[in-house]
Structure formats: structure tokens, C-alpha cells
């Protein structure tokens, strides 16, 4: 599978990158680590005229302390850096736990946080070679007008298949986006649109420049559980991230549960904080939240595993992660 011919532009400043994006509109695609873009290019899922390689932009790198004790992660921070960061391990363990499950070591060395948050949605009918898709006549997301997952529907169900986003949702993270009109900051939950075709709230002329972790969620207990067939390489078939703040007497003060790979967006389970805050651990309560997690997830046949099993695992992982976080701290 060859790559379509495109020009590679290598801006060294954010402004230059924004200009390239604005000038080329839909003809430009951002490339960071390339671990998602390159396979998609090889499958001819898009054929941009210009690849805007943002790796030379130095200010997008690294983990730094920002205003109000927040932690700023540059969009180019690699997943390997995240997994190996003592600061993140100590303060935001759920993110480390999730990042460590992404792909395999090779992709984590190349793959960036920005790329992971802007990943294309995935579907069994979409992530196929050009030849395969042509034989089928395309799908709603690409070159066709039929959804093979939910025929008759006009909505694309391609699954959000990233692992770091659910963890960041449980940390109340914000994304910083830069475009021709300057910078804006958005709660991560508002960045995802839950639409397989139009996955993120990002303009054609914008890029993600940073992720901010607020000081108030530092130190929260957290765990990420992921369903996959192999312990490496595989994208999530389902994933659950949990963070908890539990006081000395064992009462829950803050709680977040987020799920991934079972909807076109990573989603917070709304009931979790509502039901858990102010409560002590009980198996029954945790079970109730786990059920709410299932109701939030709508897995369809976007992958080879069955939706029934993925739903089961969402419930199991939610229950298990809450139990572990509550009883053992950061397991």
C-alpha cells in the first residue's frame, strides 16, 4: 500500500502552521507522530495535497508547570514521555495508566498526546484498504451513502478508539486550541462531538497546542482498564477510566468515570459523580454506577468483537476500577 503523493510542509512556529492550514483548507492534514495518519494515508482514506508536519515546533514539546499550579502538556509530548514522567506518575496516575496501554512501544515512542486526542474514529467498514472499500461501494464516512453498521441511518457510528481521552476527562483536563483568531481553551468534554464523521470541535485552520491538567485534580486516585485481545498493539474495544478522591474516613469527595471505544466520542458517565460523592464504599453502589456506564455506552458492530461482550466488559471494568481505586488507592 503506497502513500498518496503530498507535499510535506515543516513549519517551525505555531503561527506558520496556522497559516499553512488556513491557506490550504481541506487540502491540508496535520501530521505529528504519524502513527495514525500514515496507515490512514496508505489506505487512501484521505489524500491531502499538503501534510503539515508540526514536529519542528519546539514550543509544542514537553511537560511544564503553568499558572495556578496547572500542568501543561505540549501537544507533541510523546506517549512514552507521559508513561515515564515521575511527575505524572505521582500526580495524575490515571493518565499514565491509560497511556501505557496505547498501541505498542514503537507507536508510543512516535505517537504524541495531541495526535491521540485528535485520532480518527475507527470502524471495521472504514479502516480498510482502498481496494476493499471500493468492492463494497464505500460507507457513510467515506465514498458512500450507506452505513453498514446501522443501515438506514444517516449517522456515522465509527468508534472513538483513543485511550488517553477518557483518562483526561476524569481529570477535568482542558485543551488549548490555536487558530488564526488566537488561542482558546475548552474543557476536553466539549471537544468531542460524538459523531463518527465530525469527531472533534476543531476548525480546519486550527491545531491543538496544549493540554492543561488542573491543580485540583492532582493526586486523585485513578485507574484505567482496557479491553483488547492482545496485551500490546491493539486499539481498545472498550475502556473505562476512573478517578476518585476519598477522605480519611472513607467517604468519596470527588468521582469521575469515563468510557471509551463504545461510542463515537469518549464520554463521562454523568451519574458517577452525582451518585458517589458523599458516599462510603458499597458493592451495591458501585454496581449501580457500573450499570450507568453501560447505559452511556452504545457499542455497535464497529469491530470484530461483539457489542454484547464489550458492554459486559464496560460494566466489569467500571466496577473493578471503582473498587480498586476506593480500596487500594492507586492500584
Amino acid at each position, binding site marked *: 500500500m503506497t502513500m498518496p503523493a503530498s507535499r510535506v510542509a515543516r513549519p517551525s512556529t505555531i503561527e506558520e502552521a496556522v497559516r499553512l492550514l488556513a491557506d490550504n483548507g481541506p487540502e491540508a492534514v496535520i501530521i505529528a507522530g504519524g502513527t495514525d495518519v500514515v496507515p490512514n494515508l496508505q489506505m487512501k482514506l484521505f489524500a491531502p495535497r499538503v501534510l503539515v508536519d508540526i514536529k519542528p515546533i519546539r514550543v509544542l514539546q514537553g511537560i511544564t508547570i503553568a499558572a495556578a499550579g496547572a500542568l501543561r502538556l505540549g501537544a507533541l509530548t510523546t506517549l512514552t514521555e507521559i508513561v515515564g514522567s515521575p511527575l505524572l506518575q505521582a500526580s495524575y496516575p490515571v493518565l499514565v495508566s491509560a497511556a501505557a496501554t496505547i498501541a505498542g512501544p514503537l507507536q508510543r515512542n512516535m505517537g504524541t498526546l495531541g495526535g491521540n486526542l485528535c485520532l480518527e474514529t475507527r470502524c*471495521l467498514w472504514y479502516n480498510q*484498504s482502498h481496494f476493499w472499500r471500493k468492492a463494497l461501494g464505500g460507507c457513510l464516512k467515506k465514498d458512500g451513502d450507506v452505513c453498514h453498521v446501522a443501515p438506514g441511518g444517516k449517522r456515522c457510528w465509527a468508534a472513538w478508539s483513543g485511550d488517553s481521552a477518557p483518562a483526561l476527562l476524569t481529570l477535568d483536563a482542558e485543551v488549548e486550541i490555536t487558530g488564526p483568531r488566537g488561542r482558546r481553551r475548552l474543557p476536553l468534554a466539549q471537544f468531542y462531538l460524538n459523531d463518527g464523521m465530525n469527531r472533534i470541535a476543531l476548525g480546519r485552520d486550527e491545531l491543538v497546542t496544549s493540554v492543561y491538567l488542573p491543580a485540583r485534580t492532582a493526586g486523585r486516585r485513578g485507574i484505567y482498564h482496557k479491553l483488547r485481545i492482545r*496485551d500490546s498493539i491493539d486499539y481498545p474495544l472498550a475502556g473505562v477510566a476512573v478517578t476518585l478522591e476519598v477522605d480519611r474516613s472513607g467517604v468519596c469527595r470527588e468521582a469521575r468515570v469515563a468510557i471509551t471505544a463504545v461510542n463515537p466520542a469518549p464520554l463521562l458517565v454523568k451519574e458517577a459523580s452525582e451518585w458517589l460523592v458523599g458516599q462510603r464504599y458499597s458493592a451495591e453502589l458501585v454496581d449501580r454506577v457500573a450499570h450507568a456506564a453501560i447505559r452511556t455506552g452504545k457499542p455497535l458492530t464497529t469491530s470484530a468483537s461483539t457489542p454484547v*461482550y464489550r458492554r459486559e466488559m464496560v460494566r466489569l471494568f467500571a466496577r473493578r476500577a471503582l473498587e480498586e481505586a476506593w480500596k487500594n488507592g492507586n492500584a
Partner: protein
Amino acid sequence: MHVHRIIAAHDCGKALNPMTVEGQIEGSVYMGLGQALQEEMVWNKGRLMNPTLLEYRIPSTLETPEIESIIVESIDPEGPFGAKEAGEGSLAATIPAIANAIYDAVGVRINTLPITPEKILAALREKEKQRAGNDAPGTNGGSR
């Protein structure tokens, strides 16, 4: 589901090159392991749904257990220098060995490949249902 260790003995007649024979045994066990637990071609109306190695999942190093190979030499009078074969012999035995290990561990028999956690869960539920049915008053039990 994790396979912790596989011990494979193979009668190759005469090991002309013992290290190669061991390599063949390990390779065969690995292939059998993949077929037993993960590898599957998923079809939909004649279309192969997982034509790449991302979705057709061969075991990674993390799923591959320690393999202990035992060479059995029986000296075949018909074969060259007493040798028979060291091809894929150990592959065939690996699959039922894993299926039996699962039966030994959780008491359910899965008769289709690959043996996924999903199938085991379904079989366990089915077994539970049958047991509940058999224990219920007024029924006179199942076959097992």
C-alpha cells in the same frame, strides 16, 4: 486468559540438528497457540473483515508463554538417517492441550476456535442455567 507454560514433546525420528528441531517445535506451538485463542478470519457475505495483521491477531510476545521442547528420538528405519519430521507436528497437539487446560480450569468445553473469553463466559452462564434448572424442584435433571 493467559497460557502460562507449554511443554511439547515431539517424536522426530532422529534429530539431525537438535537446535533446529527445537525451533520447529516452538514455532509450531506458537502457531497452535494463535489458532487456539486468537486467530480468526471473520467473514461477512464473502468479505474478509479483518484482512490486515492489526485485526487478524497473531499472539504478541506478551501472549506467548515459556515453551519447553522435548525431543523424542525413535529412529525411523524408513527415514533418512532415522529421521521422520519436524514440521508442524506440535501444532496439532497444542490446540486440544489448551482446550483441555481450559476445561480443567473452569469446567467448560469449547468446541469452536478460537476459544475466546466471550465464548467461555457464555458457556459458563449456560452451565449455571442448566444447573439451576436441574436443582429446581419438579424437574428430573439433565444428562450431566
